[in-house]
Each structure stands twice: as structure tokens, then as C-alpha cells.
């Protein structure tokens, strides 16, 4: 008798569980990467947007871009934050995503332990660690070097051996001399070693090379044909815009929320990194020239990395 009762309870419980699962299936999922890109959306984690049809968006924080890509492909995530090159590659691979906006512009820093480095010329013959092989740091830096008269493969030793955290640690410890790092690692490295120098302004050098005042890094994409309607998209994008603005206005409060929602940074570090993360809100159409300028570097160096060609017109959505 007791046994049968337990069985029944288990059956009911699993039914209820699966029902709730089905119910939750309908709510669109907005996924942010842990780290700076996620910070931009932190206000949505605190107050998930209310969408059409009485649905509330589900917020997810994801630890790696590869996992993000997998879940976008599988359709589990309808709205996602991705590095712009990955978004382009997905588009060319036939995944029906649209670029809604660029929410993070260039946040790479060149940091060094060596005071004798004052310009690109002093980099000749040195080893520079670069965080992000085959990604924006790699191709952007190569372009800058080439335009500065240096052959990235012959005149320098670019090393991609270390992981981001290890690179930042080694830089702060002085085990490596110089590195190109994204946020939050550059802020972290500087916090660990305040004596680190930043003699080169990569954004300015990029502008010198391409005429573009900045370069995009973080994209917000929306899966077409998913449960997100046009109206939903507008609601979400308004929320994102508001989130970015609020975060920039009060980094300390935002930092606390970042820690609260487990977005990968402590509140103090998030607050310190926010001003350096270069958060922006650029609609796709407006951001297009800068996106294409950056992707052109990918195309020149390794076409396969973004799928062989620039994304088509329909990639750049307007809501």
C-alpha cells in the first residue's frame, strides 16, 4: 500500500514537472555571456522584460561562447549575445539569426611591463601575447601591425598559447612582457599590478588604419521565426538600451547586480570594468559600416572564420 502510494506520488510529481516544463517552453530565452558582454544586460536579469501574450522573458547567463552558439543553433535561445564574428559565421552557416544591435564596441587594451615600449616600432623582435586566436584581437592587431610597417609573423612573435586568465596573471606577475587583452582581464591585470603601462591606444590605431572611429565586439542577435515577434523584439531592445544607459550611469549599483545574478564578476571588479567596457547601443543598420570594416580583416586573413564572405543585407535587422 505504501509502495503504491509512493509510486502514485512520483507519477503525479513528474507529470506536474513536465507540464511546468512545457509551460516554460513558451517563454523566450535571452542569453548573455558571463563577463563584460553580460554586464550590458544586467538590468534585464534584475527585471526580465514582459513580452506580448503575457509572457516574461527568461534570462540565462552562459559561461562560454561555444555553448552559446550551440544553444542558438538548437533553438534553445531566441535572443543571444555573441562576439560579432561568431554571429557572422552563424549567419553564413545558414542559421537564421539577425543582428539587432551592437552592444559593445572595442575594449581591447595593449598592456606591458616594459617602459621602453612607446610606439609600434619598439615591438619589433618581441613576443606579444594576444588573447583570442582567430578572433577580433588577433586580426585587429595584425592589421594595426601591418599598417605600422611590421610583419606580424616575421618581425614579431605573436603568442596565443595562454588562456585569458593565465595571460592576465602572467602579465601581472611579469612572467610575460606584453599582451593584448579584452576586458575584464585588462582591468583585472591592472588591479593586480598597478605598474602595468598602456602605451598604445588600439582604437586610435585602428582609426588610423581604417578610418573607423571604433570597432564592434559584442553583438545582440535575434533568432528569426522563433517565438519572438516584432513587438517582442522592440520591447527587448528598448530594455537593452535602457539597461546599458542605467549601467553606465551607476556602475557601482550595476556591479552589485552583476554579482547578485552570477554574471561572472564580483561587484567591485564589475564596477571598475564597466567604464572601460565601451558599452554602446548601435542599431544594426547604423553599425553596419563598422561591422563590415572589422569583418573585412577576418576575410582577408582567414575567410573561413566568418564563412567565406560578408553577411548578407538581411543580416542587419531593423525593428
Amino acid at each position, binding site marked *: 500500500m505504501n509502495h503504491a502510494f509512493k509510486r502514485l506520488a512520483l507519477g503525479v510529481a513528474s507529470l506536474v514537472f513536465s507540464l511546468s516544463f512545457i509551460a516554460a517552453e513558451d517563454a523566450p530565452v535571452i542569453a548573455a555571456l558571463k563577463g563584460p558582454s553580460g554586464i550590458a544586460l544586467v538590468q534585464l536579469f534584475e527585471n526580465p522584460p514582459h513580452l506580448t501574450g503575457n509572457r516574461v522573458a527568461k534570462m540565462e547567463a552562459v*559561461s562560454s561562447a561555444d*555553448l552559446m552558439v550551440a*544553444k542558438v543553433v538548437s533553438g534553445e535561445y531566441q535572443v543571444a549575445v555573441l562576439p560579432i564574428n561568431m554571429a557572422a559565421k552563424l549567419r553564413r552557416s545558414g542559421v537564421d539569426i539577425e543582428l539587432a544591435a551592437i552592444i559593445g564596441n572595442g575594449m581591447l587594451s595593449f598592456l606591458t611591463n616594459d617602459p621602453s615600449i612607446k610606439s609600434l616600432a619598439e615591438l619589433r623582435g618581441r613576443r606579444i601575447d594576444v588573447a583570442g586566436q582567430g578572433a577580433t584581437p588577433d586580426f585587429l592587431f595584425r592589421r594595426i601591425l601591418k599598417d605600422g610597417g611590421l610583419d606580424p609573423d616575421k618581425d614579431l612573435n605573436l603568442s596565443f598559447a595562454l588562456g*585569458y*586568465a593565465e595571460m592576465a*596573471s602572467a602579465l601581472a*606577475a611579469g*612572467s610575460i612582457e606584453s599582451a593584448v587583452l579584452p576586458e575584464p582581464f585588462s582591468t583585472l591585470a591592472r588591479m*593586480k599590478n598597478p605598474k602595468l603601462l598602456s602605451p598604445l591606444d588600439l582604437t586610435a590605431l585602428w582609426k588610423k588604419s581604417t578610418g573607423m572611429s571604433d570597432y564592434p565586439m559584442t553583438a545582440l542577435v535575434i533568432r528569426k521565426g522563433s517565438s519572438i515577434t516584432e513587438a517582442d523584439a522592440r520591447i527587448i531592445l528598448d530594455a537593452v538600451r535602457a539597461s546599458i544607459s542605467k549601467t553606465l550611469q551607476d556602475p557601482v549599483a550595476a556591479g552589485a547586480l552583476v554579482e547578485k545574478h552570477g554574471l561572472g*564578476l564580483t561587484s567591485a571588479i564589475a564596477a571598475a570594468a564597466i567604464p572601460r567596457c565601451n558599452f554602446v547601443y548601435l542599431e544594426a543598420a547604423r553599425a553596419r559600416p563598422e561591422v563590415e570594416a572589422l569583418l573585412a580583416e577576418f576575410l582577408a586573413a582567414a575567410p573561413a572564420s566568418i564563412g567565406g564572405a560578408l553577411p548578407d543585407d538581411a543580416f542587419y535587422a531593423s525593428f
Partner: protein
Amino acid sequence: MSLRARLGVGLLSVAVLVGLWHVGALLVGKDIILPSPLRVLREFIAIAPSPDFREAVAGTFARGLEAFAISSLAGSVAGFAAGRSALVQAALSPLFTTIRATPVLALILLALLWFPSGVVPVFAAFLMAFPVMAASAMEGARAAPKELLEMAALFKVPRRKILLEIRIPAAFPFFAAGARAALGLSWKVVVAGEVLAQPHRALGTGMQTSRMLLETPRVFAWALAAILLCGLAEWLFGRLVKWGNTRGL
């Protein structure tokens, strides 16, 4: 060797290792690369009372236990059956070979796509530990001495009793060895899986988070917690085996 002597030597060797570590840390000179044992201990004491830490310990412990329980149970049954039946062995053999040949990391990355992040470490650990347990159980299934089986047949002892009172007890030392190996493996892979999958309430997640924040002493402190947990589990396991021995296994 007496228990006291063994404990003494054990402690001494731990002390030597810690001493070497300390010297290494002094030589390197940078906490962010190799923190000293004292520094790590201080970090450990700093994080130990926090509820996050305790939840992480509980979470990892639960996962490790789960992985061990499932893999040792499934491994025992599957391995024993394979040991007794050539058909079962033929059926399971390709499965074992495939699992053994696949690198752990590949399994974890695949699991990330299929399972929620809390389950990934358990799944990966199960895949690693299951074949180990099954191999031992298979050997154990064949370990019953022939003369004893013959004696039981002569006395017309029913088959079920033969299974329960000869085959399984004869297999026990093999089960124990397999389970011990499975236990150690389960822990390692659970923590590794946690570092990659980063579920809530996990020591691995703590390690990874600290790493991302360049807090190397804290990474070591989390690792220390994982080692202590593993040590605790192995000790408990040892007691369990001893208890089994007293019960005539």
C-alpha cells in the same frame, strides 16, 4: 606496520610535500602564479565559513556520490553479467571500448550540449567510472573457485544460493578494488566537469570563477577543498569495505 607508524609516516610525507611546495612558492615569488601553502590556507579559512562555500561543498559532494553510486551499481551489474554470459560480454564490449577510448574532455563538451550544467559533471564521471567498475566486476564474476562451485553442485545447493553465497562473496574483493578506482575517478571528473560546465553550487565553479578573477590563491583554496572532500570520501569508503569484511564478505 602499526597503525600509528603508518599514520606517522603518512603525515611526514605530506609535510615534506607541503615543504617542497613552500620552497617552490618562495622561488617563484608571485602569489598570482604559485601561492604559498600558508597563503592558500588563509584563503581557505577565509572562504570556508561562507554559505556559498558550504553549498558548493554540498553540491560537489552530492554529484560525486551520485556519479559513484550510479557507476558502481551499473558497472557491478553490467560487469558481473558480462562475466557470467558470453552473450552479454559480446554485446557490451564495443560500448566499453568506445567509452574508454574517448577523451574525457570530448565527453564533457558533448555533455554540455545535451544536459543541464548540473548534470554534465555527473554524466562525464559516470562515463569514466562505469567501464572501470564493470571490468573489475567482470573479473570478479569469474573469480569463484571451481572446486567450491563443484562442492555446491554436489550438495545440490540451489542456484540462487550459489549466486548469493559463493559467486558474489568471491567477487567482493574485485568489486572493492573496482569501486575504489571508480571513486577516485568520479571525483576528479566531477570537479573537472564542474570547471567546464559551471553549475551552481559546485567547487569546480568556484575554482573557475576565481581563476577568471585572477585570484590564484583562491583557486588553490577551492582545489584544497576538493582534495579534502575526495579524501573524506575515500576514508568513508575504506570504512565501508572494512564493515563488509567483518560481515563475512
